[in-house]
């Protein structure tokens, strides 16, 4: 193929969310110490139980070392060079959106997340988080009518301390891992969702995370609780400006599903990935875990990971309840020098618990894309079932696709199946499509979207189309 665009050209497109919002920001001094932890807590006027939680986590963190088992390589992170709290300066209380800095609203407009009344997405409630704080949450009143609580976690700490006290840190304990401990010590904001007994959440909930400062770490914390028979679908999106330096993002997400409850958690992650030489980009170290505490509860993770210089992320399900169901659908795309080590853990504890894993990895450029998953069947998980499928698509001969599925079973009456395959966009497939009059770019994006279809089908409709487009954009310039 001579002058025709290559799939390679097609996979690398400029990052269109790379702008910086020029806004006055309140930042605390660099570095991490017990005083910084106390300061963050004081800034948020938190109750003592939360300060204690943070301090305990901080002390545990000091004793921990950064994990090194993932197939990732990055420059060492200097945790004292980071700023642990940054917030746009504005009125303390924003009674309505009119009081929110128009620049912020404009930023979210540009990101495709309009917050103002007339433009906002219908039927999707949005919580917008800018650096360390939540800017606005839409449709709160409408949700409140149904008894659904959807607000930033800081507000939840003030308004519903009893819920926070009883659920925070119960799924991901503060000493779970290095990054979770760090997050527990310094988390700034994030979303809190509570769906009371028997309520089906009337609309999609969504949080949009935006990192703006160049030297701030973002440590958000999300907690979703679905009581008996409740159900909710939640989506998060993330972008960041382009900087030459790397920013650290270490989030913790906890999901709790009681009897017959169902939580669907979707992520479209598009953090800045660094340039083609691997300069800049977000280090994304995220701990996401859901606990199916109740019988017949259901947790489903769907993720489309396209950004970040480094992705270290394993959304997991602890299937405690009898007949509980865990699902993981993932598309991870890496290009240039991105590195992703991502997958899931399905821990089957309850009888007849079932799980499904579908993971699609696309590696292009000189990137490395690893699937690392654990399926563990405990001795009491009689009749448990797991099905895993992980497929890799390689674009170009310099990208790496690694697969590390760990399977551990202690229950004879359980069935575990795992299968994996590797493929590529081959010249003859492209030739076939092109000979049918389909343009080169359309042909590539057709093949990529076909490869990812099993996962996109799981996304809420509005976002499935978005994700498809996003992949096509991200892949520009890498097949040939």
């Amino acid at each position, binding site marked *: 193929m001579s002058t025709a665009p290559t799939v390679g050209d097609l996979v690398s497109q400029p990052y269109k969310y790379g702008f910086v919002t020029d806004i006055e920001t309140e930042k605390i001094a660099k570095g991490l110490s017990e005083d910084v932890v106390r300061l963050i807590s004081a800034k948020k006027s938190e109750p003592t139980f939360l300060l204690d939680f943070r301090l305990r986590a901080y002390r545990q963190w000091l004793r921990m*070392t950064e994990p090194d088992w993932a197939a990732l390589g990055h420059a060492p992170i200097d945790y004292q060079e980071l700023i642990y709290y940054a917030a746009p300066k504005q009125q303390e209380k924003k009674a309505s959106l009119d009081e929110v800095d128009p620049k912020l609203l404009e930023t979210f407009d540009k990101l495709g997340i309009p917050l103002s009344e007339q433009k906002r997405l219908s039927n999707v409630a949005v919580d917008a988080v800018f650096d360390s704080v939540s800017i606005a949450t839409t449709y709160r009143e409408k949700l409140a009518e149904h008894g659904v609580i959807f607000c930033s976690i800081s507000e939840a700490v003030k308004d519903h301390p009893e819920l926070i006290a009883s659920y925070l840190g119960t799924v991901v304990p503060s000493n779970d891992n290095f990054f979770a401990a760090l997050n527990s010590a310094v988390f700034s904001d994030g979303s809190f969702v509570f769906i009371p007994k028997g309520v089906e959440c009337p609309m999609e909930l969504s949080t949009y995370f935006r990192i703006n400062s160049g030297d701030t770490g973002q440590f958000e914390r999300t907690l979703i609780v679905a009581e008996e028979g409740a159900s909710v679908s939640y989506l998060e999106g993330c972008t960041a400006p382009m900087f030459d330096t790397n920013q650290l993002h270490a989030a913790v997400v906890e999901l709790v599903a009681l009897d017959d409850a169902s939580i669907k958690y979707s992520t479209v992650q598009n953090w800045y990935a660094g340039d083609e030489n691997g300069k800049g980009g977000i280090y994304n170290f995220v701990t996401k875990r859901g606990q199916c505490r109740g019988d017949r509860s259901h947790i489903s993770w769907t993720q489309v990971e396209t950004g970040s210089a480094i992705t270290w992320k394993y959304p997991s399900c602890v299937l405690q309840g009898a007949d509980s169901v865990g699902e993981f659908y993932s598309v991870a795309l890496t290009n240039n020098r991105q590195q992703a080590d991502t997958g899931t853990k399905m821990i089957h504890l309850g009888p007849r618990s079932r799980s499904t894993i579908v993971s699609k990895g696309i590696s292009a450029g000189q990137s490395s894309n690893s699937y690392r998953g654990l399926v563990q069947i405990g001795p009491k998980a009689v009749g448990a079932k797991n099905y895993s499928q992980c497929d890799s698509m390689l674009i170009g001969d310099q990208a790496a696709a690694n697969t*590390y599925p760990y399977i551990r079973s202690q*229950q*004879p009456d359980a069935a*575990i199946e795992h299968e994996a395959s590797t493929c590529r966009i081959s010249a003859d497939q492209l030739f076939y499509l092109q000979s049918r009059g389909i343009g080169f770019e359309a042909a590539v994006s057709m093949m990529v979207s076909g490869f990812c279809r099993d996962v996109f089908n799981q996304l809420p409709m509005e976002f499935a189309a978005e994700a498809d487009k996003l992949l096509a954009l991200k892949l520009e310039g890498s097949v040939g």
Partner: protein
Amino acid sequence: MMASLSDTDAAALAQGMATAPWTQRFLDGLPAPAGELETVQWRGREALARQTLPSRRDEDWRFTDLVPLLAVFDGTAPTAGSSGGTDSPAAASALPPPAPDTVRLLLDGRNDPLAGQTLPAGLSLLGEGEWPLALGHTLAATGCQAHWPVELNQATASRCLALRVSGAVASTLELVSVAGADVSGAAEAEPGATQIGQRLTPVRVLLLLEEKASLNVLQVQLGNGPCLSSLVCEARLGRGSTLRHGLLAFGAGEACFLGHLAVEQELESRLESVWASRGWALSRFEPRVSQAEGGAHTSLKALQLAEEHQLVDTHSRVVFEGPDGQLEQLHKAIADGHGRSVFNGAVKVPRLAQRTNAAQLSRNLLLSNQARIDTKPELEIVADDVRCAHGATVTRLQQNELFYLQSRGISAAVAAGLLKRGFCQEVLRDLPAAAAGWEPLKRLLAEA
């Protein structure tokens, strides 16, 4: 980060200090290095003294606890008479007669296996000037020359069977090693044998297959009571050559097995390796294959059984260093009682290994509530024009299959046995024909 480094060092140091006495006692208990492998033994002993024992903190040994093995040499394991019992897999005196067209050599790491034997046509001993150069080459090429089990073998083996294979060898070469109680009498007769010497049977084999040569080898490793059967087998397959390698590893009681099979393959060579393992308190087998230029065919088939409190671990690794390589791997495991089966299968396809076609399947039967299965395929692929698939299943016997057989008037127990045998046969049928005469294999098939 400095902090984490020093932490690791501290941990390693603490661990080293904790295990050093064992290594020291072990090395002290060995007879002085002697024989044709004297320099290798010195090097191995130095390496052992420097290395820390593998521990469960090492990712590669995460599931494998060396305690049963250490106990063999600490004298804490009861003597064989009390535990081996009637289940002894093979008394040395009771070896089955060799199958027709089979040349049997007894390897004990000390005595000359060729005493009173003639090698079949096509096989010749490597000369004095040749084998020291070739020894260890394949271990290094497959990246396992410094592995602890390899060093342990090098530190103790005083003999090496080094053979050149030219042309097609018609007879099957059967290499038999018996460790433990049944040969202790023989070992005691040997002057200067120490207790450690009696409990350890190191076997070292080196095979060089010339261009277009072909050879059938059956290795039989037996162990009974507190003993360690240690195997390091290296093979270099010249262009267009074929090696059919069978391994029967059967232990009883406290017997432990540590094995490395390292194979380097040139273009158009074929490796067909089949192994079956059962009865070891602890077994760790590491087949490592490097297709030096790609374009070769590798087939690995395995059946391992973990029963009682046994732990059976296989860590395989296949690396394609060139294009057009092929791999077929089938790993089967049965875990029953309190047994634990571990499989880690690495397949590496670097950038230059275009058009590699590799398939790996791990199939596991979990038959008891106390047994455990850990399986972990590990694929690292960089080349884009490749076909690499892997699969893994863990189940018990299929209910519908049992039901089908029962509906044909076969009792539940017989039906379960039939299905288990079918599961095993898929691997065992590919063993060299000479394997059929071995009692432990017959028993396995009769029981299953």
